[in-house]
Each structure stands twice: as structure tokens, then as C-alpha cells.
């Protein structure tokens, strides 16, 4: 099951978290009260040039110094703070959420074309695989991620997301089967500027994981969703594919369709399937992915999970359910169902 929603304001007008809280709560039927989360882009305007490294600590006296030491090796911590939380009756605080605003030293990755991103990615993989009791669950610039085990409205109130504003929000309501109760298993998943919310199960996970691991990524979250963030990072940031092409690599047309395409298009799709066959995601899924330039929603190639979208003014809404969109924006007008594998993309115009 799981319910997902994403909204982007293409004019970068900021919204607070009230709307998405009620929209996600509208889909409680799709969750089990064991995991929910939100991501918001544009959350830290004063610190927007720093990577907002979000960490779940099991304790502060032993693991926090180790993470600080690792970060200091690779750059400068400009500021750090506990993520403010507010006690909720049935939500047990099992981790201590913390955020560091970090500036990596680009000279430490001399061979990279995106050295700052690569430093941060390296630190994320290093901390998550070598420091027990610390999990970096978000690492983008100007992006905040809030997640925990609980119902959507509890998690929202635990972090008081209505106090944050941003021009892109994503939410996820979880029905866990793999890692219930673990905050790291809740969505959204984030790496650098990529955030992912996902409903479904990726049956090609083993193939996808082995593919991205050969490019230096390490899966640490015990769930299939994180590979989506890594795949987008690899294909778009490191390989320089346009976003549409990356989506078409992950959910490509069937060979039957490709065979019927005009020459030039056929050549492109054949090449995509040959080069990125191991990135193809199989199994039932609906996914919303965001980065600092856009938001995209798409489903698996035979649409085994629901996904609908609607627009109002500068805002594009993508969700599992029409009701969630209408809760957020009653005047949304027509709701459309995209075809299987077809990407729905919202880009900033401002």
C-alpha cells in the first residue's frame, strides 16, 4: 500500500506544511501508523548554500563526536542544531534528529566534476556504513526531511512542519512490511538534492543494487526505495542524462512499442535499454522524485500502483489519490491519470 503526495510551486512561492499534513492524513487508509515523513525544498533560505546533513543519533555523547570528526575531515560545519521536536502521546522518540549545515572542501575530490557533491556522498556512505548509532538520512542543500514511526499527522505535529515553508513538499504514509518501527525505513529517502517517495516494491532491487554498487553507492537502509535516489543521482548528476531520459531508463517502453517507433526515436530507446538495462525498475511502484530543479512522478511499466495529478495556477500536485489532492487544493479542477511509465514533470519557471 503506502500513500504518496508531492506538490511543487513552479513560481517558487512558498507554502507551509499545513496543507500537506491534512492531505497525507486523508490517506491514512493506505498506511498503518508505523511510518510517515515529509520533505520540503526551500526550508533554510538563510543557510541555502550549505548542505543540510540530517542525522538520526541513538545517543549524543558517543556517536555525535564521531560524525562531527568525519564531517570536519571533509569540510566545515557552519552550524548545527537539534531538530526541534514536540512530544506526541503515541509517538516514541527512539532517535535524536539532528542537522548540520556543512560546507565540503572541493579540493579533497580533485578528480570529480562535482567535487562538493561527491564529498558529501562519500561522507554519507562512510557514516552510514561505519558509525553504528548514526544514520544520515538527508544531505541536500535547502532541503529538510522529517520522518518517524507514527501516523502522518503525529509525525507532522512531532516536528511541527506547519512552522516550515517551502516551494516543494513531498509526503509519504507508510504501510511497512520490511523494517517496521525503524525511522530510517520511513520515506522520503534523500541523497544530496534527490528525494524520493515510493509506493510499491521493486522486484528488480537485487539487479539495481548491484548496478549502483559498482558505481560506489552503498545501500544501508534495508529497503528498496533508496536505490531510486541513487539511480537518479547516477543517471542525472553523474551521467548527465536529461530527467525525462532518466525516467525512461527506469521505466522504459516495451520492445514492441520501440520496434514501431520512427528510426531516430527507436535508436535512442534501444540505446537506453541496452545501456541502462540494469537500472530498469521492475515490480509495482508509483514514485515521486524531486531535486532542486523539478519534481517528477511516474509508475512502473504496467501501472500496478495508482498515480494521479492535477494543476492549479503554478502548482502541480501528484498523489496516489485524488482525495488527497482535493484536500490540499479544493479548486484543483481536472485530475488526470498518466499512462504507465509516462513521466509527469514539474519545473520551476522562476
Amino acid at each position, binding site marked *: 500500500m503506502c500513500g504518496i503526495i508531492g506538490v511543487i510551486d513552479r513560481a517558487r512561492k512558498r507554502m507551509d506544511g499545513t496543507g500537506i499534513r491534512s492531505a497525507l492524513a486523508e490517506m491514512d487508509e493506505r498506511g498503518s501508523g508505523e511510518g510517515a515523513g515529509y520533505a520540503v525544498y526551500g526550508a533554510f533560505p538563510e543557510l541555502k548554500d550549505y548542505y543540510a546533513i540530517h542525522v538520526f543519533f541513538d545517543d549524543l555523547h558517543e556517536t555525535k563526536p564521531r560524525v562531527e570528526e568525519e564531517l570536519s575531515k571533509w569540510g566545515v560545519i557552519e552550524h548545527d542544531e537539534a531538530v526541534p521536536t514536540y512530544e506526541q502521546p503515541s509517538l516514541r522518540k527512539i532517535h535524536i534528529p539532528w542537522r548540520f549545515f556543512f560546507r565540503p572542501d572541493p579540493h579533497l575530490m580533485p578528480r570529480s566534476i562535482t567535487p562538493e557533491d561527491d564529498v558529501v556522498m562519500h561522507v554519507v556512505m562512510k557514516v552510514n556504513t561505519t558509525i553504528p548509532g548514526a544514520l544520515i538520512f538527508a544531505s541536500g542543500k535547502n532541503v529538510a526531511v522529517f520522518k518517524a514511526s507514527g501516523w502522518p499527522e503525529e509525525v507532522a505535529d512531532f516536528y511541527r512542519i506547519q512552522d516550515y515553508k517551502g516551494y516543494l513538499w513531498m509526503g509519504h504514509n507508510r504501510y511497512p512490511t520490511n523494517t517496521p518501527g525503524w525511522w530510517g525505513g520511513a520515506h522520503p529517502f534523500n541523497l544530496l538534492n534527490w528525494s524520493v517517495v515510493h509506493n510499491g516494491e521493486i*522486484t*528488480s532491487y537485487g539487479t539495481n543494487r*548491484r548496478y549502483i554498487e559498482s558505481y560506489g553507492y552503498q545501500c544501508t537502509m534495508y529497503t528498496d526505495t533508496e536505490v531510486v535516489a541513487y539511480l537518479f543521482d547516477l543517471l542525472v548528476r553523474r551521467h548527465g542524462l536529461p530527467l525525462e*531520459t532518466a525516467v525512461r531508463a527506469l521505466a522504459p517502453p516495451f*520492445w514492441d512499442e520501440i520496434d514501431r517507433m520512427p528510426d531516430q526515436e527507436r*535508436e535512442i530507446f534501444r540505446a537506453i535499454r541496452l*545501456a*541502462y538495462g540494469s537500472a530498469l525498475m*521492475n*515490480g509495482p511502484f508509483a514514485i515521486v522524485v524531486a531535486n532542486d530543479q523539478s519534481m517528477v512522478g511516474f509508475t512502473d511499466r504496467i501501472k500496478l500502483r495508482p498515480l494521479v495529478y492535477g494543476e492549479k495556477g503554478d502548482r502541480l500536485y501528484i498523489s496516489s489519490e485524488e482525495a488527497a489532492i482535493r484536500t490540499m487544493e479544493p479548486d484543483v479542477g481536472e485530475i488526470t491519470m498518466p499512462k504507465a511509465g509516462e513521466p509527469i514533470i514539474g519545473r520551476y519557471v522562476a
Partner: protein
Amino acid sequence: MTIGSVPLRYKIGVDRDQCMLCGRCVENCPYGVFRMEGERIHVNSRVCVACHRCIAMCPRDAISLEERPVDYRSHPIWTPQVRESIYNQARSGKIILSGMGNAQDYPVIFDRLVLDACQVTNPSIDPLREPMELRTYIGKKPGVLRFGEKDGTTVLETRLAPNLMLETPIMIGHMSYGAISLNAQQSLARAVKHAGTYMGTGEGGLHESLYPYQDRIIVQVASGRFGVDINYLERGAAIEIKIGQGAKPGIGGHLPGEKVCADVSCTRMIPLGSDAISPAPHHDIYSIEDLKQLVRSLKEATEWKKPVFVKIAAVHNSAAIAAGIARSGADAVVVDGFRGGTGAAPRVFRDHVGIPVEAAIASVDAKLRTQGIRNEVSIIASGGIRESADVAKIIALGADAVYIGTAALVAMGCRVCGTCYRGLCPWGIATQRPDLVARLDPDVASVNVGNLIHAWTLELSELMGAAGINSIESLRGNRDRLRGYLLDEGIMKVLDIKPVGA
């Protein structure tokens, strides 16, 4: 008479009540087990090889076959086979020849692997109602694609290397004309053309009658260079350099002179009736850089239009060897496991040298990925693929496609008697004797082989659908969908899989 006669391996019985003295058994047995004297069929069981031709042809089910009716005293170490080999070699002083694949009782890893299926949390996909893609491309794949703009439209800037397109990841491996009959090769050729897949020539050249199927044939260049000229290279859909063979790693090919008839001698370009013993190494390949030169020479000769494969036997170090091959410019590496069949091989090699294909593919795939060169070559698994489940399992371990050999022969009637090297195959498969070859009708045998490929393809689709996968590339290297059942920890580490229940 020091050694004396050894116990019968097989005993043939004739039910006299059933037998109607039609004489079909006499006609059909090329080994001379049966003879008709007056109103009675007489039997010489000692020459029987258990090919079952007589049993299949007897219209009254009158013939029975018993294995080892009088056996040696049982002993766990001194098995009958060990004792017989000693008697044999004490008499002959020679290397013992054998056929088919490894006959030693090693555990089969395939039979200790189980596949996955979807339940509740994700739906299985029904191949009768949804598309299911088994199309497979064999060859180099670009690691990264580059796009550009031309007249306002997106164009692909990356140039793709030539790839073979398979409608199903099942190909037929290299069995030469010489080792098998022309009728057998023609049957295979017609079957692969119909199924949209490929077959190999083996190191026996390409007979003229196979030219109509040449776009579905991979031509082999082995150490003997039998049958190789520019005409041969240009006709093939791809070229395969054979370094080694799973049934006999480290040594060359053996074709007994009995099988070198006029037509075989012309196709191979060797003298009539001569033993075709190809050398152990290629005489122009003494190191990996020499291989690179041969790969490039073959590509140059064929204007870089054809993929070049390199076939090695699965041996202890095959992962590192495959990594070297991936850097040689080759487009695919074929890894032939120690259960791979053969027309003729020294028994000591067939049974004792090399490793199973399951472990070899797992380590080759892992090594290529660690080095970031998995896309440089496709991996073809061969040697011991017996059923569609084996295909699914080996692809999940990391192979792109498989070669089948023995299974295709069995589809044409072969009973796996393992006597291919005698050249008397009663099924018309591993023989060149015209009367025996005539027993194999390509019109029928090609349909049987085609049916087998089709049936396995259907089963593979069902297995994929049950696992919630609708495209073969999502099965490839998907070791999460495998579990080991009673495999030891060391093997599971090599295969990089979890045990059942985990």
C-alpha cells in the same frame, strides 16, 4: 588371461513371448548386440552401451535392459568404475577416452538453489495477460549515453557496438560438424532461426548447406583453425574464439579419424580420415595481449561489423581471466562449466578438471562489476544447463544468456549414453556413417529442438512473472531472488546469496 573378463555393464533381455522376430533390433543396433539365427534373436550384451535404440524401436516392448546384473564386490573407495579403468589401462597403456559431460558424483549447485515468487505485497505478473520481455542483446553496451541536439531534436551521440539480438536468452552451443552429423547441425540451425536465437559451428567449419542459416550462426575460431578462412568469418553472425572447453579445460579438441568422412574433411579443410587433434593453446596466443591482437584482427578482417566472443573453460581463476578478456576488446565471454558435454575427451579431464558454471558465473559477474567493466562484455553461461529453471538461476547469478548443448541433442533423441567418440551414434547425431545419419530427419528433429526452446521460454516467462518481473534484464544479476538450500556458507559467499528463510 591375467585380468579375465569383467562383469557385464548392461544385460539385454528379450521376452520370447513378446518378440515377433521382426529384426528391427538387429537393424538398429550399430554395436552388434543382436543377431538373428534361425527363429531366434541372439544377444551379445557385452557390446551394449545402453543407447536405448533397440528399446525405442521394438514394436512389442520385448527388450529389457538391466544395469550391472553382476556387480563387483561393493566398496566405497574402489568403485566399479575405478577398477574398470585400471583393468582398461593395464591392458592398453593408454589415456581413457569418454564422451558427454562430467560423470563424477559432485553435488549440483543448481539443485540447491531455489527461486522466489510474489505474494500479497506485490502482484505476480501473468504472462498470458501482460507483456513479458525475454529479448536479450549480446555484445558491448555503453556505460554512459551521450545525447546532442540536431535541428531541434534530441539525437544520440554515443555509437553502439554491434550486438546480437536474441528473442530468448537460450542459444545452442558449439557442436562441430564432425562431432555431430550434418543432419543434426541442420536441425539445430532451422530451430534457432525459427526461435530467433543463435547456434555455434564448433571448430568444424561451416558446411555449404548451412549457408541459408548463416545469419543465425556463430562461427568458431579454435586452436586448430579448422575450416577458418575469410569466407567463413564473413558468413557468421558473430565470431567466437575458443580458448577452452568445460569438458576438457587446458587441452585441445579431439575428433577421431573414424568421423572424418569426405564431407567433414572438406568442411574442416583437413585430410580424409585423419584424427583432428587441435593444439592445447592457440599457437599465436601465449598471453592476454596476444588474445587482444586476435580479437582485433578478426574484427578488422570483418570490418568491425561482428561481435567477437571468447570462450573459456570455468577454472579456478576464471573471474580474473574474464576481466582480462573484457579488456581485450571482446564483446562477450562464454564461461563453460565442468559439466559441459563433449564428443570426445580424456575421462580424467572430463571428470576432474574445472569448476561448476554456477560458481564461475557468480565470480565472473562480481569481478567485472567490482572493476566497473561489466558493460564491456556480455556473459554467456554454458555447461550443465538442463532445464528452464537452470536458465533462470544462472541469469539471476549474472549471466546474460546460456548455451545449451546436451539438452538440444536429447531433444533430438540422444539418450546420453556417452559413447559419442565411437562415431556409431544410433540416433544419427554423433556419427558420420551415412546409414546412421539418415536416421535423423531434420524436418522432425528441428521441430523437436524448436519445441524445447519454446517450452523453456514459456517456463522462463512464467517464472519471471511469478517473481513480479516483466523484463529479463531485471532478473539478470538479481541474486536477491535466489536462496541457497543446504549449501555451505563458503559457496553461498561465492554466490553472494542468502540461505532459505533469511
